[in-house]
């Protein structure tokens, strides 16, 4: 469809800014595998400290890139399916807030005054502008939800008996999850941390802050994932020349995420003090609940791809697997998505381990964790983001993709890299290798008394994988920015591949409205989080003063 110049420009900025920052993010990803494997025994390289780089890697890749992309892709889905552009002023206001927030947070990180990692657990204190920047990024991302919800209500009033398009439903569900979960982190950042970091309040209840963070933190995972899910359900079957096996299954899965995304957050705190075992066990149970939408998706997508393969002439039980357009440069979105799905099989299985009540004690905070989430957020999520960024940019600008044959290879290179990288990290985690640690200074330094020879092969594997991932990343930058530098050859339009449904079930009112689901969601959140917060309030002691990463003496005493 035709869209206005202003809307195009908004999308280009929302895709281009985070992809540019990603250069810093990916550089620090490679550097970590180098430090950790003991290739260098330094606390910093090129004037950037290991933990400073790790903070940038997390904040840019996992918060900035994902949030900007979710907003841009949400704009695209809503506009394309409701055939109406969002409000111009609100769209640019949202972008302005997000960009100011990103600049503030990035400035704080680059200055070295916010090396607190992307989880920013107190009482490690960052520069106040770091917290303010994150808050602005989040508030900016709320604005489109308000606008889209208005557009949806209007559309629904005109089309009461038409099923809401799956991509629209997915976008609205995703941003509803995002809005509710970010309320907690906004409270943490603005009410607890910002005044405390300025010295206006003397202390912060650390476990309470962590509980608020993880109320947000696990739902964040689904906020990353749902844009990829929307693509899997509405785009993947089409680019494979098939049909979506069941439209209703997609709706059930999406509402499942709405229910379970937030209340499971306590499973990140299995090793925390002051939260009782019963509270943790309940979160563990709910986490198995969140596996259900993923099981539904696994089946529905496999069935959709099987249908596509058979339509392309495949025979036998597994013949369809060989008949899909893996290397077709014109269908590169298929390559990006199928590669994400391959990684997600392992990402999902390792995730079930993390959430399991007892197994958590084996792997919590070890290298196993980054091993896991590089097969989720750096798997389906990242590949969907970069593939769709190239696609949206190329379609809307009317420029052909630069080096199309390279473009279709990138996701496969990435999968190989991640599989090697995550094998190294998962194995290392099982033999005790901690995450977020500059291992090269001590544990991977043969001249240090803490040297651990058993961690050499694991960190070396991670290094090999990291190098391959880095190369894939560089190729992506060449393709993306190369496309930007090309001349326009076609008319720029907004167009998304649209999958038909194989089972296009009749409209089921329950799965075409929000109210009952929002109520159930609220009940589950109350059941999971009222006990957790009561535990924390009952069992914790004094509040913690501020500390900087370089000094065991609290900031207040140092300043005296």
């Amino acid at each position: 469809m035709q869209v206005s110049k202003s809307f195009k420009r908004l999308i280009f900025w929302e895709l281009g800014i985070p992809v540019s920052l990603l250069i810093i993010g990916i550089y620090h990803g490679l550097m970590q595998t180098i430090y950790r494997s003991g290739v260098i025994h330094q606390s910093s390289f090129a004037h950037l400290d290991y933990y400073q780089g790790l903070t940038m890697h997390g904040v840019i890749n996992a918060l900035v890139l994902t949030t900007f992309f979710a907003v841009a892709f949400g704009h695209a889905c809503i506009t394309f399916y409701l055939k109406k552009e969002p409000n111009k002023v609100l769209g640019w206001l949202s972008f302005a807030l997000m960009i100011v927030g990103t600049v503030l947070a990035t400035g704080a990180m680059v200055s070295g005054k916010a090396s607190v990692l992307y989880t920013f657990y107190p009482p490690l204190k960052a520069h106040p502008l770091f917290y303010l920047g994150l808050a602005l990024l989040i508030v900016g991302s709320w604005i489109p939800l308000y606008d889209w919800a208005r557009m949806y209500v209007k559309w629904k009033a005109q089309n009461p008996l038409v099923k809401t398009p799956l991509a629209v439903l997915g976008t609205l569900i995703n941003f509803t999850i995002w809005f509710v979960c970010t309320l907690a982190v906004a409270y943490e950042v603005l009410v607890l941390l910002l005044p405390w970091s300025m010295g206006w309040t003397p202390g912060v209840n650390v476990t309470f802050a962590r509980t608020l963070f993880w109320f947000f933190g696990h739902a964040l995972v689904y906020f990353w994932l749902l844009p990829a899910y929307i693509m899997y359900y509405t785009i993947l079957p089409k680019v494979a020349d098939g049909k979506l096996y069941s439209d209703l299954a997609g709706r059930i899965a999406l509402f499942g995420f709405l229910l379970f995304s937030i209340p499971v957050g306590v499973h990140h705190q299995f090793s925390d003090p002051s939260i009782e075992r019963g509270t943790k066990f309940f979160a563990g149970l709910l986490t198995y609940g969140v596996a259900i939408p993923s099981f539904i998706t696994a089946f529905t997508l496999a069935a959709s791809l099987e249908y596509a393969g058979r339509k392309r002439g495949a025979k036998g039980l597994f013949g369809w697997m060989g008949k899909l357009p893996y290397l077709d440069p014109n269908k590169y979105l298929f390559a990006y998505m199928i590669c994400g799905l391959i990684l997600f099989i392992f990402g999902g299985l390792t995730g079930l381990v993390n959430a399991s009540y007892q197994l958590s004690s084996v792997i919590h905070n070890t290298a196993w964790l980054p091993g896991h989430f590089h097969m989720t957020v750096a798997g389906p999520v990242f590949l969907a983001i970069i593939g769709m960024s190239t696609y949206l940019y190329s379609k809307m600008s009317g420029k052909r993709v630069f080096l199309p044959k390279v473009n279709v290879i990138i996701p496969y290179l990435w999968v190989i890299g991640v599989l090697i990288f995550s094998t190294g990290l998962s194995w290392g985690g099982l033999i005790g290798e901690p995450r977020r640690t500059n291992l090269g200074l001590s544990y991977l330094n043969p001249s240090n008394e803490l040297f651990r020879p058993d961690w050499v092969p694991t960190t070396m594997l991670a290094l090999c994988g990291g190098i391959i991932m880095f190369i894939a990343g560089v190729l992506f930058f060449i393709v993306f920015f190369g496309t930007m530098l090309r001349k326009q050859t076609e008319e720029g339009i907004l167009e998304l591949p649209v999958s038909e449904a194989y089972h296009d079930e009749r409209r089921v009112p329950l799965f075409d409205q929000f109210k009952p689901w929002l109520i159930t969601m609220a009940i589950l959140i109350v059941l999971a989080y009222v006990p957790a917060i009561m535990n924390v309030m009952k069992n914790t002691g004094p509040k913690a003063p501020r500390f900087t990463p370089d000094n065991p003496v609290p900031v207040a005493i140092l300043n005296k």
Partner: protein
Amino acid sequence: MSLIDKTEKRVMMASGAVLALFLFSVLYAKGKYKSDLPECLPYSKAYETPKVTKLDDSTYQVFAVAQMWQFQPSEIYVPVGSEVDFFVTSKDVVHGFNILLKNVNMMAIYGNINKTTVKFDKPGVYKITCHEYCGVGHQNMQAQVIVNYPTEPPPNLPR
């Protein structure tokens, strides 16, 4: 047209069975092997003084205090077969308390007390690693539990 086809029904049953199996395994491990998460204790200032207390020949209590960038006590001597209660807290930022091979995995948090009990059946040196980023010295933060090895502890260390 029915809403759910035959294959979908089968897959739903299979998924349900898999989840039920997971749940059963968790409950079974909890009951049979007493494998559980850390115990929840209310805060008390008493735990902020690091010490090792011998309750009887095979039962010990360790008050472990994590701080930037060391654990106190940094060496803990216990005999083979002893059961040790670890009470863990932090004097400053968040630290980790991970004893490899014993599945002891706790966060050490200011103003909070974490607790777990573990039995040391075999002699050896068990490393305690800080696995949460705690500042510039994080990668040097390790302590050890020495179980009947190599010999008796020097007299100035708590027994």
